[in-house]
């Protein structure tokens, strides 16, 4: 039928609408912080939560909104390892390498994730599904080694559990 739009078109429209919504939300965040001193990091934090990373357009929007030079915004972002200037995957897998997790095999867990996902620490898989990062202690040392995926926490992770964790997020839209 001619009125029917194909799936990919629909998806593209959805993506654009989501993006527009995120920028509107960013505007609101900036609006509430405008004129206050020392809010840059706070705003960047919220912006990253919104976008998953901090693309140049977002950096420029923050700079303009807070009346801070773009050079300074970018300088702050690149100083803190928390901020990302490359696109992130849908899910961020963080493997804890705090002392307790480290001695209980965190490093091997991390290496296994790298192998399974074919991506190095700090990188994002080709399909933009996963980004892999390292955590420095999440304060749950009794559960070592700990892996978090987004807000989900996996405790006492053994190497053979890893494919299952990945599979859980691989299928479906989310």
């Amino acid at each position, binding site marked *: 039928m001619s009125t029917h739009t194909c799936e990919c078109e629909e998806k593209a429209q959805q993506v654009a609408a989501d993006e527009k919504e995120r920028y509107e939300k960013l505007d609101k965040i900036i609006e509430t912080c405008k004129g206050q001193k020392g809010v840059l990091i706070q705003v960047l934090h919220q912006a990253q939560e919104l976008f998953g990373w901090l693309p*140049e*357009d977002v950096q420029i929007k923050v700079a303009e909104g807070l009346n801070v*030079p*773009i*050079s*300074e915004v*970018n300088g702050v972002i*690149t100083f803190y390892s928390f901020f990302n200037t490359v696109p992130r995957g849908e899910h961020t897998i963080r493997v804890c390498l705090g002392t307790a997790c480290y001695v209980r095999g965190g490093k091997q867990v991390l290496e296994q994730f790298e192998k399974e996902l074919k991506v190095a620490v700090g990188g994002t898989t080709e399909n933009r599904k996963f980004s892999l990062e390292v955590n420095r202690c999440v304060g749950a040392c009794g559960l070592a080694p700990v892996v978090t995926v987004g807000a989900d926490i996996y405790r006492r992770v053994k190497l053979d559990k890893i494919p299952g964790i990945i599979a859980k997020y691989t299928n479906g839209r989310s």
Partner: protein
Amino acid sequence: MENLTLTIDGKQVTVPKGSTILQAAKSAGIHIPTLCYLENVHAIGACRVCLVEIEGARGLVASCVYPASEGLVVKTNTPRVRSARRAVVELMLSAHRQECTICGRSLNCELQAVSRQLGIDKSRFEGAMPKATLDLSSPSVVRDSSKCILCRRCVTVCHQVQSVGALFPVERGFDTAVVPALRKELSEVACVNCGQCITVCPVNALYEKDSTEAVWKALADPTKHVVVQTAPAVRVAIGEEFGMAPGTRVTGKMVTALRQMGFDKVFDTDFSADLTIMEEGHELLHRLQNGGVLPMTTSCSPGWIKFIEHFYPQLLPHVSSCKSPQQMFGALAKTYYAEKMGLKPEDVYVVSIMPCTAKKYEAGREEMSATNAGPDIDAVLTTREAAKMIREMGMDFTSLPDGQFDDPLGISTGAAVIFGATGGVMEAALRTVYEVVTGQTLENVNLTDVRGLEGVKEATVKVGDLDVKVAVASGLSNARKLMDKVVAGEADYHFIEIMCCPGGCLGGGGQPIPTTNEIRLARMKGIYDEDEAMTIRKSHENPAVIALYEEFLTKPLSHKSHELLHTHYTKRQKYPAAGSCECEKVEELVK
């Protein structure tokens, strides 16, 4: 003010509360070596060269930021202090591309000086060098990060003094680098090319784009008629490059040096500065009488022009349409002068010597071409580059006899020479506007209200029936204050003079290094002395300018004037195009 007393190296020192240890030591005649510190501008304790020992404290402290307090016992010269300072500088050297013999800042390098002062004669540390970038994209400023010692002076000047914010440190630790916004090339970001970063750089990490090679080539080309113009602020500063005291007036020696270098004619930008006053003064009158856009701002400073294009594009109608004196000179050299001499414009090669790096950019603006023979100005040398060429000639500059500028583009007045100091254009314009409007002679030509280093100056001058309200700003953060007032509708001025660099052109980005407030004041005195020494001190009385109007331009704001001496401006983006490039494009490993 409340005082406090502390002990430094066994000496009782009393200083005002709020002083740092470094200031206290200085007042007691005790010298603490520094590197990143820059008086009145930059004190962040980044380089750790100014470390001192404090009795009872665990570690050494950076004296440039550590506050003096009552009863503090400070030692500035112990084995522990000396060894720490040495280690700090040796580490810096280990990440600095050392090529002192061929470096542009050799013998005028603060790292070299401090290293010598600390007696460093070997380097203990060898290892990885940070990734280096050589950014040649800007027509004015070159960045060579292989020399950068991360003192951040350039960042402070760019953000605080100029409110431009083109540079900032990115990344952390060993990866730290001072780069243009978003790691773009300098030409891609909102940099105004003022070169203030160059004048504060302790090393050769920032310097002007070289034009000396091009000028030597033109001078050696028998088919070229090579003329040179010298800006007002050069004559009171170039002597510093040859060990003379700041502010020494060396106009005659400079003319002789340039003539010996082989220029066919040695002319003066002061001539076209007088012409600028004629055009700009009449433009102001025209705006006043015909309800034009006010306040009108000056347009001679190319850094200021690029600043307003990037940051206040909506205010561009306020800017005078007059070209700068450099560009008026170029347009006339390739038309009026070429015709007079029976030369083809393409055979006239025009060089300017400017206290300025932004002039290099201005010369390359596409609208700055009055003939079909390419740009009106072929090459721009900074004061430093001109001095370099004089050195290359092997001349003993200080003992040169005085020469005279050539006719006709070398004839000028006192009103023109003061263009080199903040407030000078305003003063010169008012000298002429007053007489044009009232028909009376201005007895006291000295308008001292607009002189001096203060960032923003205001005055009201009675011209006939009208109280002309004027404002003068130098340094772009001061310009910003005035522009914010204009945006808010709170500026009831008629005329605003803006100079990009603090103190005006005498403190320009192309001037001898260093430039401190003390040096600015000395150069300023030189400028006003030069004005006083001139027989004619009003632009409209310049006989060569009068002849130019009679023979060629007819009258100010004539059709021909508009064609040759006026220009237009371009709205520019404040932000670089997003996503256009990431660091790869700029990163060019220096071997």
